[in-house]
């Protein structure tokens, strides 16, 4: 882009006599906001030396909607539907976190049926989110077919959600004091059918992508993050667990009915892209395990404990509650002044914090690795920008 053309001969002449290589120049490229592998409108300002990444500067805010500000104008009940729109692939879990915060502070009791259904839905949500991630991951690495297989299988989960909650993506299903509807009579049947269908498909995923020698070469030893730096960088979810820290809220501070089910927390050994990949694949298996334990044991009970028009007021004070979404920990910090609207609501979004680790992992690798890293973090841009 320079105005005065510098020829190669000039460069050679300008290079020091003993230089073993020609003088090179570092340059910036904008990866995004419109870029196929930044999954929406994220922009990475990348400083490159040839193909080698020297520095990564994330630039965010292209779809900042001010959800925290909007929350100050909405009642708690109305705010739930905005939480759908943070990380839209974990809509139900997001609903749940806000409801959990509200229920805890307002002292609203729920029953076992509600908690079991919430847990089931959250795990289904985790599976569908990871399915989509797997597909997109494949596409980012060039295996386009994986993308469509992932979407094909995700369709079954979204159908189950559609049947029960009435929406496919932004369900607004979990509400303070219960659920919007009771589960659909066909829910149990549908989930069982899905589990039967999906188990062999998961093996196929492994065959198509995981075992592939190119994938292995692309992921092993790329973007290594030690436990210490992963913690210091504030990552959570599969990114943190891939780096060998077994911090899973479902296990360490069980909510819902997670304390009653058996499941393992997958943890990586090395902290590279492969470990993060593997952690998510294993999480899908563990989610299936959880669903299998719960699906036949949904207790009887009401699906809503309070009237849907009842005014919810939180006592004055600060409360913080969090839950494990598919991408990490979503925390909701509510400062209440005693009214039915939050005085200040802050959302600790998993993607916002996970994204920062790119700046530590990126330098020294190549552009193609940057794509793999970004994919292994599994970002959802609306959750970053909020």
């Amino acid at each position, binding site marked *: *882009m320079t105005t005065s053309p510098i020829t190669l001969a000039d460069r050679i002449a300008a290079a020091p006599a003993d230089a073993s290589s020609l003088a090179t120049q570092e340059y910036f*490229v904008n990866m995004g906001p419109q870029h196929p592998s930044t999954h929406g409108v994220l922009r990475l300002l990348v400083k490159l030396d040839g193909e080698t990444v020297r520095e990564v500067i994330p630039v965010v805010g292209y779809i900042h909607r001010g959800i925290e500000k909007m929350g100050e104008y909405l009642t708690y009940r109305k705010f739930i539907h905005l939480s759908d729109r943070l990380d839209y692939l974990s809509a139900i879990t997001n609903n749940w976190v806000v409801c959990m915060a509200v229920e805890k502070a307002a002292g609203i009791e729920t029953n076992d049926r509600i908690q079991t259904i919430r847990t089931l839905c959250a795990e289904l949500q985790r599976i569908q989110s990871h399915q989509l991630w797997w597909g997109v991951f494949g596409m980012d690495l*060039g*295996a*386009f077919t*994986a993308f469509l297989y992932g979407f094909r299988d995700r369709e079954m989960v979204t159908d189950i959600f559609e049947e029960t909650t009435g929406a496919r993506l932004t369900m607004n299903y979990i509400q303070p004091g219960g659920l919007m509807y009771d589960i659909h009579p066909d829910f149990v049947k549908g989930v069982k059918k899905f589990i039967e269908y999906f188990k062999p498909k998961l093996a196929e995923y492994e065959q198509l992508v995981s075992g*592939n020698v*190119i994938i292995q070469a*692309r992921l092993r030893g790329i973007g290594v993050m030690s436990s210490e730096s992963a913690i210091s960088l504030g990552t959570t979810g599969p990114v943190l667990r891939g780096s060998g820290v077994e911090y899973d809220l479902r296990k360490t501070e069980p909510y819902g009915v997670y304390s009653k089910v058996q499941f393992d927390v997958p943890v990586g050994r090395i902290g590279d892209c492969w470990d993060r990949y593997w952690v998510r694949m294993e999480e899908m298996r563990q989610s299936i395990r959880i669903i299998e334990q719960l699906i036949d044991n949904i207790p009887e009970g009401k699906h809503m404990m309070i009237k849907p028009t009842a005014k919810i007021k939180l006592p004055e004070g600060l409360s913080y509650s969090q839950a494990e979404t598919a991408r990490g920990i979503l925390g909701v910090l509510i400062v209440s002044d005693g009214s039915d609207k939050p005085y200040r609501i802050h959302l600790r979004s998993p993607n916002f914090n996970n994204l920062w680790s790119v700046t530590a992992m990126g330098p020294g690798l190549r552009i*193609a690795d940057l794509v793999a890293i970004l994919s292994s973090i599994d970002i959802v841009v609306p959750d970053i920008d909020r």
Partner: protein
Amino acid sequence: MTDDGEDRKVTNAIDATVWQVKTLATRTLEAVPDSPWLVAGYLLLGIVAVASLVAGLGIVLIYAERKIAAHFQCRLGPMRVGWHGLLQTVADTIKLLLKEDIVPARADKLLHLMAPFLSLLATVLVLVVIPYSPTLQIADVNIGVLYVSAVGGFGILGILVAGWSSNNKWSLLGAMRAGAQIISYEISATIALLAVVLFSGSLQLSAVVLSQSQGWWIWRAHGIGFVAFMIFLIASVAEINRTPFDIAEGESELTGGFHTEYSGMRFAFFFLSEFVNMFVVAAITATLFLGGWMPFHIGNFHSLNAIMDLVPPVIWFLGKTSFLIFVIMWFRWTFPRMRVDQLMKLEWKILLPIGFVNLGAAAIAVLFNLYFFPSH
């Protein structure tokens, strides 16, 4: 083998002379002293033939790619325009031709306009030497293999020029990747070719085909042919920039690589050259390793050979070529993309050593007639 210009005898398996062949190029050369009009006519005929071949290939292959990709991915593919979307490619071509041809503000205009044609030219030049059937070949060059290798490498020029002239960092990155990649893989491809040249003892493509009348080279040389075939196939896929070697386009990394800044008709030309390239590569591979138009013969099993001869040679050629095209598409819709340094590692550390060892083995095999049905 016959000299250039001399009429070539085409034989079937039982070594009986069937017909005499004069290629279009030979006729043109012969006509030069007599009539310039005849030369012009022959040339026009050749141009029309190649142009229609390119256009036809583009339409058929793009449709095939879409449908094959769709069915690999549990989709239907184009279904709306025409019966099962048969006219989809035509519709897309019209759309692309009608679109605005954008040249970036600070691009090198001349080079930017030229690049797609350079890219297509290399492809078309190879098309003219391929023996489609005993009677169908535009020019039978006596150094056919060398020609294919040399002209095929010329395609990189279009990509480099496109990347450089676009004045876009992504394009330039893509072009530089393509340059490194194609030049590297050219070596492996040529070394794999040399094995076949050793076996057949000729650089002429028609002669290479004829040398396989006892059996195709892929199986006739105790695995040497097969290894050479694999190396050539991999190197060829790399040379035409298709997944898993599509780092020059690298959609998810470089947003389109060297053709990021192209639109409309010029983009269509890149697209077309990619698909025709695929055909060329498949055809060359088929010619060298799978006998080209030569039916499936096994040495002296004359009855089998006679049955195989019932299928016309052009069908054999098209069948083999389409199979290879299908395999290349199958690669694309299964594999992820390699990284640029892994690509280089694969070439220089894996393919090239294997290729050299294989070439040595081929030389020994030829020296001691260690292959099935040696001709002498």
